[in-house]
């Protein structure tokens, strides 16, 4: 209507996805900036020309502190730490993403299934709880080393750690959603089950799935870094943040801090950004519905 105040038309747009995205950017600039940083980091790692070959040792240079030539310095073999740190981003983040997507792909359907069929699922849920009591990092260690250090096993290990978490989360969300009055209204309208899941259940758990996914991603980055710190998973000379921290840790004491610090900083930044993003998503979620 022509007479409606500007504020009015602004609020009307909130129902459209594009308007929602704009609102999200306005409400959480830091989280959005962080997400942008991670995307640029991955793209740079894949496509940008690096100043030096990340896997090429350079005995002539040897170990050297950060300088104009080597922004993050060089490590004990003389390889450029900056090039290696950026190159490791794709290695680490792609594994983390793959693990997260796999746990999402299995955990969410499992959560939906266990919330619809409750009789047999109670035992499954209890089994998963027992499974979670097992020290998961040790499980990942065993799996990856038994497989002969295969990278896909890192992905499987991350999925195994996170599937029970997704299942529990989705299950509890859907169970409480089923009690919602508007779900009763869909039955009274005669909405078929597939449409109910698509139009009523999924949109209402989407926010919490997204928030959990970013958290899982952060957790996966830490797990991968831990594994490669312990020498499992990504094997040198392929750069990964964990193995770089490990190789640099022995130099810390003699004052060559840059070798471990920069990859460590990247792990920290990525995890922090993903946590911020998760917070932002859950916050946005509650705000747009109330």
């Amino acid at each position, binding site marked *: *209507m022509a007479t*409606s105040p500007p504020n009015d038309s602004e*609020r*009307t*747009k*909130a*129902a*459209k996805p594009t308007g929602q995205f704009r609102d999200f950017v306005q409400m959480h600039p830091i989280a959005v900036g962080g997400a942008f940083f991670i995307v640029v980091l991955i793209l740079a790692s894949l496509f940008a020309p690096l100043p030096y070959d990340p896997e090429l040792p350079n005995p002539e240079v040897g170990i050297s502190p950060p300088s104009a030539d080597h922004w993050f310095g060089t490590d004990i073999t003389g390889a450029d730490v900056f090039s290696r740190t950026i190159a490791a981003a794709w290695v680490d983040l792609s594994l983390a993403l793959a693990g997260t997507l796999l746990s999402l792909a299995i955990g969410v359907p499992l959560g939906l299934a266990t919330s619809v069929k409750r009789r047999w699922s109670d035992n499954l849920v209890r089994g998963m709880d027992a499974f979670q009591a097992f020290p998961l990092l040790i499980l990942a260690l065993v799996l990856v080393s038994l497989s002969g250090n295969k990278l896909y096993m890192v992905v499987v290990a991350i999925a195994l750690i996170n599937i029970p978490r997704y299942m529990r989360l989705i299950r509890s969300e859907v169970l409480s959603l089923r009690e*919602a*009055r*508007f779900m*009763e*209204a869909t*039955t*009274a*309208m*005669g*909405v*078929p089950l597939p*449409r109910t899941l698509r*139009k*009523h259940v999924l*949109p*209402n758990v989407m926010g919490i799935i997204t928030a959990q996914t970013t958290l899982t991603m952060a957790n996966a980055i830490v797990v991968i870094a831990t594994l490669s710190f312990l020498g499992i998973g990504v094997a040198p000379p392929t750069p990964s943040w964990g193995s770089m921290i490990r190789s640099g840790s022995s130099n810390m004491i003699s004052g060559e801090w840059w070798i471990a610090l920069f990859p460590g900083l990247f792990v920290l930044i990525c995890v922090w950004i993903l946590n911020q993003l998760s917070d932002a998503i859950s916050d946005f979620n509650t705000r*747009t*519905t*109330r």
Partner: protein
Amino acid sequence: MALLELEGISKQFHARGGKGIVRAVNDVSLSIDAGETVALIGESGSGKSTLGRLVLRLLEPDQGAVRFEGIDLTKLNTKEMREVRARLQVVFQEPFESLNPRMSVGDIVSEPLIIHNRAMNSSEREIRVRETLERVGLRPDSATRLPGQLSGGQQQRVGIARAIITNPSLIVLDEPTSSLDLSVRAQILTLLADLQRELGLAYLFISHDISTVEYVSQRIAVMYLGEILETGPVTDVIKDPRHPYTRALLSSRLSTDPNESLPRLRLIGDIGSPTDVREIGCVLAPRCPMVIDACRDRKIELEPFAPHHDVACIRAAETSDALLASSSSGIEYN
């Protein structure tokens, strides 16, 4: 033939912890004609909302038949039931909770059309949604809003729009105005009355408050612990309540008539637990100031007291006199 006929329907739940059975609805019969409003009155825990859900088949009755347009709904499968649902709708008490918070008003109101009028294309649907929104007193451009951006009264109008868009013949109104403030309540009641006149709707109006329904309904049924105790034309029941429970309910309401002088009646104690309702005898017996031994001996059935006015009380004929006579035992005068 009545539009809706409930025939001896019962619904029991197992109490939490597995001990005991809750008789939420016990052998209830009720009928509603086309275009008529029947008010179903009772306290919380009386089983009135359960009865509404049984009519809508959101719950399955343990016994009895729910005949809607002559068809027994309890015998239909999911697909057949879905077709009936276009003509049998519901408006819930909590307007916000009954709307999906992530769907726009337009999507919410058009959803019944998508399910029930598949031949309709999206532009026809949009026109129909706009008409319906206007009919319930909302601006057509509120179609793009989310439920959370509307007031309680507007949300309830959306709930009503969703219920009427498929041209139903019966709407179950489950306390549609209880969570609204008084001025909005009056608007919604007026809207419901207008819609009934324009569209020839029948309502099953569930409420705990007699004064809300007395001006919008033709007939009234009073429910207590899963049973209907009195039913009849609204004027008869309110002017001359024959069941002591109905009288107690009327005593608790604020009257707008200063000259009204029905004797006040107070029941003894609180509403009993539906878990320990006995097989025989009147459900009100433990609380009734008029109770006699005969009340506890056999099941008290609804019996005609006057034309169309049924009462489940063996002392129905003497209610007023009995109350006057026993004014010392829990009965007061105005």
